[in-house]
């Protein structure tokens, strides 16, 4: 039975992966755009775009042959090691992908080093206290806080503080090792926070196990106790660490863009924005391969660490105990945000006043003005309604998706794996390539990947309710399946899952802001937080407050996301705990009462 299950799950994964690769292969057809004109321009500037010339280009690209021929051609090219030619530059795709991959791999390696250092720092206090036998309760909040900082925000702040103001480090380009430091920090710190938090959450349960007391009592050195505790905690976390590496690919897009690093992420973003689909196909394929390789490495490392004990699930880690957060903290954060948004909403975000460009804060403009003389506070307030409004819609969509899939858990398994492993930014890049950058595209992308944790929660609740004896009693009464579903199972599941969806709202808003920042979401002149940050960072030297205001607002939002996720509503009879789910920005584990 178990083998059958594993086989079916493996098949579902393979099918989902094939579907993603096929989607990538079909991008030119799916987008429904006619690339003939842009290809023609790219090939020769002089040629007139006559109907015959355009038709010739279309024939050349094979776009008229239909989707299957296109997919076949693309797959055939892949087998021969060809990725086609760029629609924009007409250059071979493979060399640009290869050079981008090299840069990105270097950057990722450097940020992994940073991540390991940060993770060690995050879980060091717990290790020390554990070795002394004074570790109580859940993990600290430091790791969770660091993990919640989106890369694009950290990158911008690092650029402003260390690069521009302090002038200590180069802020753009890729000429030498000194160019590696800031991007590696921006990518490594959140990843390290996430890794550190995973270990930090697992340690209290490990140190509660009897053997640690026995070891300490019999005089084993603290260092050896710590080493043994780590050896106990780490193997179970290795798969998640693999997903952290996958998450780095999403971070790479934002960070490479901010620091003008010519890596794979920036190439993919540029390709998506200019609808250069062959180049985008190549980049996404490379990113997918990278993710698969990371997952494979994680599996190998895990097998090596666990050895034979892996078979039959003999070794399990005690359930992690995430730190508790008081309701007061998120309430205070929300109050500050609401105050700023409320005052901003009363002002006009669109009036351009060229006489007052980049003004300092004053009574008339409490947070100053932006490059077009628009009031920053007003743009912040109105931007919140855009971002939060869209985030609400996204949460509602993922709630409905989660309920639907929660009732059919098998159908969603492979999809959930893919959605889990796809960073929001990569999803945003793909959707933007299809629909063009827009608020709708960004929300679609975030909705597509934000349902799996909700669906897992819904599936667990459905299973629990269906197995309960009151549902058994209902069947014995003679209630039909529809009666039981609509009057008992659905109401029992919908409430907790809806609460869970609301708790994820700030995380979703952050993901949307990240896409806005990269130009994949809301378009100017609409006030959106990510877009605000992107627009103002160019003028940071002249109007620092205008740049810092959205940065601080986003940081508050991140803090709200992480503290809300740490909240645990009181449990009534039994609690369903949701395993920490991978994926940046929306990965906080949430425990919700059934």
């Amino acid at each position, binding site marked *: 039975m178990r083998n059958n299950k594993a086989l079916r799950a493996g098949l579902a994964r393979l099918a989902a992966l094939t579907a993603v690769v096929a989607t990538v292969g079909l991008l030119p057809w799916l987008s429904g755009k006619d690339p003939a004109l842009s290809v023609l321009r790219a090939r020769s500037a002089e040629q007139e775009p006559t109907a015959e010339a355009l038709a010739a280009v279309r024939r050349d690209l094979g776009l008229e042959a239909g989707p299957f021929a296109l997919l076949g051609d693309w797959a055939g090219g892949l087998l021969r090691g060809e990725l086609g030619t760029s629609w924009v530059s007409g250059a071979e795709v493979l060399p640009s992908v290869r050079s981008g991959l090299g840069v990105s791999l270097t950057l990722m390696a450097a940020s992994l080093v940073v991540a390991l250092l940060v993770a060690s720092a995050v879980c060091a206090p717990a290790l020390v206290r554990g070795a002394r036998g004074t570790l109580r309760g859940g993990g600290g909040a430091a790791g969770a806080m660091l993990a919640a900082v989106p890369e694009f925000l950290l990158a911008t702040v690092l650029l402003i503080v260390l690069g521009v103001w302090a002038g200590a480090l180069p802020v753009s380009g890729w000429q030498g090792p000194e160019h590696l430091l800031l991007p590696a920090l921006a990518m490594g710190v959140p990843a390290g926070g996430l890794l550190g938090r995973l270990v930090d959450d697992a340690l209290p349960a490990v140190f509660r196990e009897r053997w640690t007391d026995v070891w300490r009592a019999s005089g084993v050195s603290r260092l050896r106790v710590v080493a043994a505790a780590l050896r106990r905690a780490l193997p179970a976390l290795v798969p998640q660490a693999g997903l952290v590496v996958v998450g780095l690919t999403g971070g790479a897009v934002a960070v490479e863009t901010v620091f003008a690093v010519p890596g794979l992420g920036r190439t993919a973003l540029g390709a998506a924005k200019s609808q250069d689909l062959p180049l985008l196909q190549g980049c996404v394929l490379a990113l997918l391969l990278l993710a698969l390789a990371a997952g494979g490495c994680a599996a190998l490392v895990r097998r090596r660490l666990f050895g034979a004990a892996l078979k039959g699930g003999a070794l399990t880690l005690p359930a992690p105990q995430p730190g508790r957060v008081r309701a007061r903290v998120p309430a205070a954060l929300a109050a500050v945000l609401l105050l700023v948004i409320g005052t901003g909403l009363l002002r006009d975000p669109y009036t351009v006043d060229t006489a007052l460009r980049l003004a300092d804060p004053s009574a008339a403009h409490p947070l100053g003005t932006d490059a077009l003389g628009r009031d920053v506070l007003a743009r912040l307030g109105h931007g919140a309604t855009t971002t939060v409004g869209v985030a609400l819609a996204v949460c509602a969509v993922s709630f409905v998706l989660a309920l639907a899939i929660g009732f059919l858990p098998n159908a969603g398994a492979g999809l959930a794996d893919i959605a889990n492993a796809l960073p929001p930014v990569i999803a945003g890049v793909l959707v933007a390539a299809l629909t063009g950058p827009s608020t709708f595209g960004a929300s679609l992308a975030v909705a597509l990947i934000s349902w799996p944790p909700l669906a897992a929660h819904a599936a667990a609740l459905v299973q629990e309710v269906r197995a309960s*004896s009151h549902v058994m009693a209902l069947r014995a*009464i003679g209630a039909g399946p529809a009666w039981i579903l609509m009057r008992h199972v659905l109401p029992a599941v919908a409430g907790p899952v809806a609460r869970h969806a609301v708790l994820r709202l700030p995380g979703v808003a952050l993901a949307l802001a990240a896409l806005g920042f990269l130009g994949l979401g809301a378009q100017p002149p609409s006030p959106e937080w990510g877009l605000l940050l992107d627009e103002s960072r160019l003028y940071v030297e002249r109007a620092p407050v205008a740049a810092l205001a959205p940065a601080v607002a986003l940081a508050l939002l991140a803090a709200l996301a992480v503290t809300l996720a740490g909240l645990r509503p009181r449990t009534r*009879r039994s609690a369903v705990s949701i395993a920490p789910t991978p994926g940046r920005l929306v990965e906080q584990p949430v425990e919700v009462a059934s």
Partner: protein
Amino acid sequence: MTPLLDVTDLLVRHGDRTVVDRVSFQVDEGETLALIGESGAGKSSTALAVLGLVGPEPGSSVRFAGQELTGLKGRRLRALRPRFQPVFQDPYGSLDPRAPIGRTITEPLRVHGRPAGAARAAELMELVGLDPAYADRLPHELSGGQCQRAGIARALALDPRLLVLDEPVSALDPSVRSGVVNLLTGLQKRLGLGYLFISHDLDLVHHVAHRVAVMAPGGRLVETAPTHELFASPRDPYTKQLLGWAPSRP
């Protein structure tokens, strides 16, 4: 006379494991047949199969008042369900935690499209010794004993002839246990109900059952006899061991 419940060669499998092994027994009107055995012997699986909640293997027969139940599905089975109702072990788990108990008690009536007003709820609650004022309470606001009474009231709502009682008092505090047991015996006398009473509590069975069937691990019935006869002179070695007559194997 046709027995109320007539089970013949009941065979239940979970995957390739046999949990109930060709079991046969009868329950008459007004009679309590106790099914005893160690936990995991297959008693609850028998109950679920009798209730038509798990499907028995082909060749099994469960007849209710002469009507064959195995093989019936969907609407036709649901139409017969009012006549045999369960009471489960977990008093809290067997009630919807979000519904007031008054609504839970009358839900069977609504399912079958019968009148289900507050008066009927009060009548049922009084029948099981619950204060009708509790109708608006949620299960977690009541004691385990009160919840179990609500569960019994729900089982009685459709005027059944047979109750399948799966460890009905073993999750209750000893202080309220006898109250619920006396309620069940009183109801049986007043309404002439047949009980299939599943328990591992030998003293309780001795007290309430007219006849006892002993189930050995693996789901075989080793002995069925009138209660006093079984407790006075068990014949099967397993029954002797269960009753503490023979020393358990080393």
